[in-house]
């Protein structure tokens, strides 16, 4: 995987992206968001509002606790570390204030991570590349055994 950013992903918003691995891997699209992409869904927009896909019996907000609950409903459990483990898929939830979830990234088999940046591109990156910027920092990891 190479390094570097495209000019139109503002490095002020992701300051570490200039010195950490950070590569655009898709065109911009409004079809799916970071939560959908973290779940491997590139056909739906997932969030707790009246126009989007959401799981039943979940609170209708984007709090970290709610997003953790969503992943737990889908078979994930919180874990302490972010290293790649064979046979597991991992996600990282980001927050700026430790209350609201700002972003979710999914780990790839090569140990790097993939993220959908809102209505913009997918990017492949290291975790530090995504931290310290507009999404804040990783607050919690979750993992699920691959079938």
């Amino acid at each position, binding site marked *: 995987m190479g390094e570097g950013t495209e000019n139109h*992903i503002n490095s002020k*918003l992701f300051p570490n992206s200039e010195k950490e691995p950070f590569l655009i891997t898709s065109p911009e699209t409004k079809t799916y*968001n970071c939560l959908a992409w973290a779940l491997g869904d590139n056909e*739906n927009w997932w969030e707790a509002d*009246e*126009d*989007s896909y959401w799981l039943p019996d979940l609170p209708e907000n984007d709090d970290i606790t709610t997003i953790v609950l969503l992943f737990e409903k889908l078979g994930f459990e919180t874990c302490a570390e972010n290293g790649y483990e064979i046979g597991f898929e991992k996600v990282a939830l980001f927050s700026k204030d430790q209350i609201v979830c700002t972003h979710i990234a999914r780990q790839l088999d090569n140990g790097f991570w993939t993220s*959908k*940046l809102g209505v913009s591109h997918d990017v492949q990156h290291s975790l530090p590349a995504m931290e310290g910027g507009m999404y804040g920092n990783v607050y919690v990891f979750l993992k699920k055994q691959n079938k």
Partner: protein
Amino acid sequence: MTLLKEKENWVVQIPCEQPINEALFAELRFSLLAQKWYEETRFLSFASQREANPTYQAILAMGNTILPYLFRELEAGETAWFGALRHLTQANPVLPEHKGKHELAKQDWLQWAKEQKII
């Protein structure tokens, strides 16, 4: 009216025959605020966070006069306006089976706008 970006500045092209009046200024204000909001929030995945943005709040404060502009943006493919449309119209024409599929939700809104003769 056409909005063009030249480096850091926005340039507005207005046909000679278009009258310079309050409606034009409202459309111009909406267009500039909308572009600013897109730039400020394009990397955010959750509507509550995009809609907490002060530029978005300034757009909403323009009231129902912006409805034709919102539907114009929707027709152009900008699907971030569903919350604004619900707020301003108090309607929600998105079919339950279209939730999550914003392209289909967009079509539901555009159909509703035609039925209401907004577009």
